[in-house]
């Protein structure tokens, strides 16, 4: 250890260097994981589809318009996966559904991230009564099992988009809060935080420059899982009629519509279901891969 005093300006610079090389190391480890990379590729394709679908799909014509004469067609060159009971092209609907699911997923993640970070970081950092209040509130939310709370909110408040986001978000906020809080708690005691404090760094600077960058790892993992859970949740809500309504091609709503034709045309439930499975599987693989890449125990 040299004898020169470490100035406050030195600490953030050192942190930046560490962060950059950490990020590349993590990415390298992630890349080695075949399954995680497959997940990443698949999910990226879905994102591209979701973003670009308006280019080759016309919402009114391809997704909504019912053409009864074209009902229940088998897969063909014009309709690659066939048509549903209203003559709509199934593939177009499923692809458009990706937009809906992704948007909802991202919106819910953003919401739970913002609220969860604020609550979790403040609870962890300041501790004391505020910490207790926050954690008790999370306990209350978590004590309502299953989807009961989300369903209550949507059924009571009506299923507009903000309400849906609120309902789904409330389910995810406790988990995110916990993760942020525990990251903050662990890091609060870390040595380099003590060093920064000893140099007179302010609390806010400590939170933003030192703690949050290191907490990003577990938060990112939780974020991927949140998107995955949200996609399934919104599909579930739509399925029982409390989420996105038909004729919107939300995957859950599509499955609900196909349900009535279960006896005669069972294959109608296939496409949206497989879309959900594909999306959530790829997200899970990414999340798992991220978790493994972040785990120092697996460092070589």
């Amino acid at each position, binding site marked *: 250890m040299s004898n020169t005093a470490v100035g406050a300006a030195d600490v953030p610079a050192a942190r930046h260097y560490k962060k950059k090389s950490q990020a590349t190391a993590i990415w390298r480890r992630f890349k080695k994981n075949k399954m995680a990379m497959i997940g990443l590729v698949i999910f990226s394709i879905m994102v591209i589809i979701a973003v670009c679908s308006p280019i080759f799909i016309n919402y009114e014509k391809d997704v909504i318009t019912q053409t009864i004469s074209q009902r229940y067609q088998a897969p063909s060159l014009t309709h690659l996966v066939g048509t549903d009971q209203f003559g709509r092209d199934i593939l177009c609907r499923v692809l458009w559904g990706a937009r809906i699911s992704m948007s909802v997923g991202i919106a819910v993640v953003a919401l739970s991230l913002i609220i969860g970070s604020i609550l979790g970081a403040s609870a962890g950092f300041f501790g004391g009564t505020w910490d207790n209040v926050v954690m*008790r*509130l999370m*306990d*209350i939310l978590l*004590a*309502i*099992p*299953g*989807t*009961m*709370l989300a*369903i*209550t*909110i949507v*059924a*009571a*408040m*009506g299923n507009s988009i903000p309400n849906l986001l609120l309902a789904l978000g409330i389910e995810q906020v406790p988990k995110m809060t916990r993760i942020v809080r525990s990251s903050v708690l662990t890091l609060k005691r870390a040595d380099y935080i003590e060093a920064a404090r000893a140099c007179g760094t302010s609390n806010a600077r400590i939170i933003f420059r030192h703690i949050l960058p290191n907490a990003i790892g577990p938060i990112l993992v939780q974020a991927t899982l949140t998107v*995955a859970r949200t996609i*399934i949740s919104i*599909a*579930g809500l739509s*399925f*029982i009629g409390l989420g996105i309504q038909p004729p919107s091609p939300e995957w*859950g709503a599509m*499955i609900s519509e196909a*349900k009535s034709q*279960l*006896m005669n045309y*069972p294959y109608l*439930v296939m496409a949206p*279901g497989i879309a*959900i*499975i594909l*999306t*959530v*599987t790829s997200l*899970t*693989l990414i999340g798992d891969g991220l978790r493994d890449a972040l785990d120092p125990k697996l460092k070589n």
Partner: protein
Amino acid sequence: MHRYVIKRLLMLIPVMLGISFILYSIMTLTPGDPARLLLGDGATEEAIEQKRDELGLNKGFFGGYVDYLGKAAHGDFGKSYRSGEPVYKEVFTRFPNTLKLATLAIGISIIVGVLVGIIQAVRQYSLLDNVISAITLILTSMPDFWFGLILIILFAVELKLLPASGNQHWYNFILPGLTASMNYTAGTIRLTRSSMLEVIRSDYIRTARAKGVDERTITYKHALKNALLPVVTLIGINLGWQLGGTIIVEQIFAIPGIGTLMIGAVRSKDTPLLMASVLFVALLASLINLVTDILYAYIDPRIKAEYSK
């Protein structure tokens, strides 16, 4: 240990209060008048006002809540706005169905989950291990309602083996039970597998081998007890979660349980019924969690020491 249990039981009170307040707020602060919904559009304003008085709706936000708490403290959780029956009666009529569904689902998840997880761990890297991992990954990504529909297609429509709805006979519950258990079973398999793998790498397993213990005893005696610790916690959480999460399954298979009761209550703004059904399930879930934690302490002597402090 007793002190810990009592402390946990006391903690339930503020949690239940918090839940009741949240539910009450959602129900009363959102648009929709239960009296109006009951009497229909053609009713006169006087009739509606009269109904509101009857139902006790004119006491204001906090007045209504305090009123509710007061009565609840005496065990009176009110009557359903819709049916007029005491809510506990409604809940207890429906609850056995949900309970049957939930226990069946958890039972399957425990038996299949733990066994398959152990097999996977013991045969790590084998083809069987990889295939099962792929299957569990897909199952955890699958919506349970979709799985239920697939089961219906297979067993009810094509093979015509099992009924797709109703709750008269025990076999009515097979497809719904499988559906409800699917996600939890897959999750249990994954957790058991990873927990076993971690434990098998432990130093004390190495010690057991150096003592001359055979592989079978190492797996089922030395490793399993340690590996099951997190699995027990998961099962407890799952069971609680199941009780509140069977709503969709109940809808698909037309099983009259708490889930469907709850949705009906929300739609008709039947506040007492909603509060009763959700509070009941939440209380049960919390008690199950407590029992799980106590059970955990009996399996792991280190935790028992923690709780006894």
